[in-house]
């Protein structure tokens, strides 16, 4: 007897089933945003705040119309990063051996003492606040990147800026010396600490 071939399964509705599943997933899921600016809030303390010299404070004020007042001068947001870098990098007392600032006696002593004070109004928009935060973080990152390129080669991590170092350190697939890189990152963080204080009116 001749062998009868198995009957063909009708696959015409397969596309419909797949579309149905696809639409279900499109509707019930989202592409999640998981990036952002990390911040650490200060704990509530009873002790009095330390006294800081006026020249070591860089005041940034955002008013309710999202306008900037930096060191008592109105400023556009695009100039903020440069102004912050100049302030942090000033090296007024000469103790910072990697700074390249103008050594203006009226500006900050060294990056360790320099503090950026961010003041905002209750009516300030969150978008503007994030822009300013972003520019200030960018100023710190700029200095840290420069420092990383200077010290990196002597520690065995040449041609790598601070942000790339951080990325590598968090990458689980990277096979290099993680503790050594971690130490280097900590050293740069210690040399150029992020000191950002916030006030809400």
């Amino acid at each position, binding site marked *: 007897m001749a062998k009868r071939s198995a009957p063909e399964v009708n*696959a015409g509705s*397969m*596309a419909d*089933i*797949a*579309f149905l*599943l*696809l639409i279900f*997933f*499109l509707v*019930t*899921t*989202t*592409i*999640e*945003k*998981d*990036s*952002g*600016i*990390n*911040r*650490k*809030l*200060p*704990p*509530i303390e009873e002790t009095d705040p330390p006294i800081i010299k006026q020249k070591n404070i860089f005041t940034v004020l955002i008013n309710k119309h*999202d306008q900037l007042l930096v060191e008592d001068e109105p400023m556009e*947001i*695009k100039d903020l990063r440069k102004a912050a870098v100049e302030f942090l990098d000033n090296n007024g007392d000469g103790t910072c051996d990697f700074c390249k600032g103008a050594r203006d006696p009226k500006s900050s002593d060294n990056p360790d003492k320099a503090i950026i004070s961010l003041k*905002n*109004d*209750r*009516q*300030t*928009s*969150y*978008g*503007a*606040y*994030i*822009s300013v*935060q*972003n*520019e200030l*973080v*960018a100023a710190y*990152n700029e200095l840290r990147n420069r420092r990383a390129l200077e010290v990196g080669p002597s520690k065995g991590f040449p041609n790598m800026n601070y942000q790339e170092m*951080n990325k590598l350190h*968090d990458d689980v697939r990277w096979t290099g010396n993680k503790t050594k890189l971690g130490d280097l990152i900590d050293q740069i963080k210690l040399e150029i600490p992020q000191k950002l204080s916030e006030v*809400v009116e």
Partner: protein
Amino acid sequence: MSKFKKKKDGGLAPINTASLPDIVFMLLFFFMVATVMRENELKIKNSLPVANQVEKLDKKNPVSYIYMGKPSANYKQYGTEARIQLNDDFASVGDIISFIGAERAALREELIPFLTVSLKVDKDANMGIVGDVKQELRKTNALKINYTTGVGDALSNMQ
């Protein structure tokens, strides 16, 4: 006779759709891999600002989300000022402490100090409410926060 008329050659040949399921399945798998299930039904407008100095939110540690923004069109009766949303419902500033307490209670004890609070705030919200929330977080000692943003040119937020 017309009975034996030859059938006419009926126009174009049909398009072969045998590979359509494969294409759709490919799309399906892409979306299944690249997206996550919606956690909360948002009752507020929540278009995040963008920034370019961002770090990845560390998913190895526990994350709690606090949403803020104007009530969306379906919830107009709650006004036009920015509101806080915790889990699935509107909340007031006073609820933050108990919310963080509940989030901590659900965690293993050794993970509690690593709890990060992700603030998902609409870019048109005002800073007053964000400041209030931050003050509450300080009171309950949840100090690690993350201003969750998209990635892009930060100066575009100001327009």
